[in-house]
């Protein structure tokens, strides 16, 4: 391993206090994850292209947010109340962002993206309010909150990511209007390749951090 790799790993694995203990030993995981750089993250799929809008209602190409940096992207809808769904994803992104908050050198190499798949309700204003709940903890790498203008725009993006969205055709009235989906977040390399996909049972922040570090080490090679 090059000396630079060690320095880089040290930067990522030096969050403050108890967090560092958790990350290094995998204390909350029940297993010790393989060390960054000792395994390969496969090139699973190309990240899709599409048109999105930011919280300032400006249209952007999605690839602006999925290339050039290592990106952790989650698909959510703002009114989701499933504790194992969108709120969990956004919380974990905030937790991860907090862990690397102090490492300003990494801010230029990482980004977080939260993209809504509910254009009917998640306007730029709603996404701005949603973002407010997650951006209070320090600076960290950039975290972009995006939505689309229509289903026509979000559909190909959902298909491209392979993100399922389901609707119950039977059930209580409470379920009406809900968009149940299997929690997914995507780790994307700087070239736009999806390198890992996380669902509820695989969304372990320590492992995600190791995966980010593995991609960072890969870039150094």
């Amino acid at each position, binding site marked *: 391993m090059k000396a630079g790799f060690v320095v880089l790993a040290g930067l990522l694995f030096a969050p403050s206090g108890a967090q560092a203990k958790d990350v290094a030993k995998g204390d909350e995981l029940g297993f010790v994850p393989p060390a960054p750089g000792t*395994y390969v993250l496969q090139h699973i799929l190309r990240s899709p292209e599409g048109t999105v809008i930011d919280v300032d209602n400006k249209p952007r190409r999605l690839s602006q947010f999925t290339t050039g940096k290592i990106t952790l992207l989650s698909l959510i809808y703002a009114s989701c109340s499933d504790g194992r769904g969108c709120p969990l994803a956004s919380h974990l992104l905030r937790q991860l962002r907090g862990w690397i908050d102090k490492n300003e050198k990494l801010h230029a190499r990482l980004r977080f993206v939260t993209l809504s798949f509910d254009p009917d309700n998640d306007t730029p204003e709603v996404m701005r309010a949603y973002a407010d709940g997650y951006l209070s903890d320090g600076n960290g790498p*950039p975290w972009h909150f995006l939505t689309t203008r229509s289903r026509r725009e979000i559909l190909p993006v959902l298909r491209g990511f*392979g993100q*399922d*969205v389901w609707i119950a055709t039977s*059930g209580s009235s409470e379920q009406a209007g809900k968009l149940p989906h299997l929690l997914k977040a995507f780790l994307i390399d700087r070239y736009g390749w999806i390198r890992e996909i996380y669902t509820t049972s695989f969304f372990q922040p320590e492992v995600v951090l190791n995966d980010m570090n593995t991609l960072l080490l890969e870039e150094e090679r």
Partner: protein
Amino acid sequence: MVRVSTASTRFAAAWLASFTLVVSPWATADETCNSPYIGNLIKGQEDYVYVWTLGIKSLGDGSDKLVTIDANPTSKTYGKVTHKVSVGRRGEAHHMGLTDDRRFLWAGGLDDSKIYVFDISKDPAKPRLVKTISDLPAKTGYVGPHTFYALPGRVLVQGLSNSKDDGGVTGMALYNNQGGLVATYPMPTEGGGDGYGYDIAVNPQKNVLLTSSFTGRKNYMMNFGKLVKDAEAMKHFGSTMVLWDLKAMKPTKIFSVPGAPLEIRWSLNPGDNWAVTAAALSSKLWLIKQDAKGDWQAQAVADIGDPSKVPLPVDISISADGKGLWVNTFMDGKTHYLDLSNPEKPVQTYEKVTGKQVNMISQSWDGKRVYIASSLLANWDKTGADGEQFVRAFNWDGKELALAFEVDFINEKLGRAHHMKLGSKALKMAFDDGPGRSPLANR
């Protein structure tokens, strides 16, 4: 970037405090034998049983097909075949698996090595063949796609054999859900590994994957009577299980498990750290469990039936609470129930002859319904009067299996009934912009 609101942050923090940070994966496990990565559970009454069926020459169209049986007792067509999709050829249809989003069913042919992808989300009552992958041997060198195991956005496919010598040395092929080949992983042939493959089962909370081992194409396509008399051929069965680092996809430990260990089932009980498998040729149930030091160990913990009579345990199905295990034995047509309260000392508490030959067994999440299918392999199935082909549904009250319905696959001119998966009409894709638009798409 956007500005920060202190008030909304406090609200969000309080809201999130009520959620568990890392959710038990087993809370999202599907009908007990499926990958824990599969979402959209069927925890209530299933509507359909999908049956991957081997074609029989001169019976119906003679081709392999996906058969849909209505399994909802409130339906007018309960217990009837309501749909079938022929793939137009006969290639030794065997196992199938759902993608993590439960939109697609992947099904394989052990002889022709084709992989068929059926869409079951747009109309769960009428699966459609949407893709055929025909280049597994050319791209990987593996043949006989057996197990289809869902990983996030991917399907891990276990081969049984290879294209060089049709022997048992093989590997796993990783595809994305769109059908693109992502990577291959050869089964280990060093450090005690025999290179054979059969089933795949993961425990994400332990970051481990377990594989088992069967035999190569030369054997599984051979006439069964001829095979058992061929002493040399009988030497070529798997006798290992492999523990893999799931994240790294690297083998970490190889267990000696003689006698062709087949299906693997992890206990779904939160906190449990063990799996079981049945070795077909030795009729032993094996336990793979962490010891006090956290090291993984394998040990034979029970006989299944009378091993001296070679009952040939085949499929197994574990209850959602990890306390019980169904085991089918092919030769004597028996279905056994083992109490797994102490997984190191399983005890058989029930058995029943459920057919003249029985192979696959699946149970509903609540354990109240049990489905049994007859076929093992085209050239291993019994013949004559013993060669019945069926799916039988039973109700289980904890004491007795009571027949609920039966579909005779010979009378229906369907073929040999093999692997089964459960389906539901309760879930459909939102944002569907195609025919049969979902309610949401019209919103």
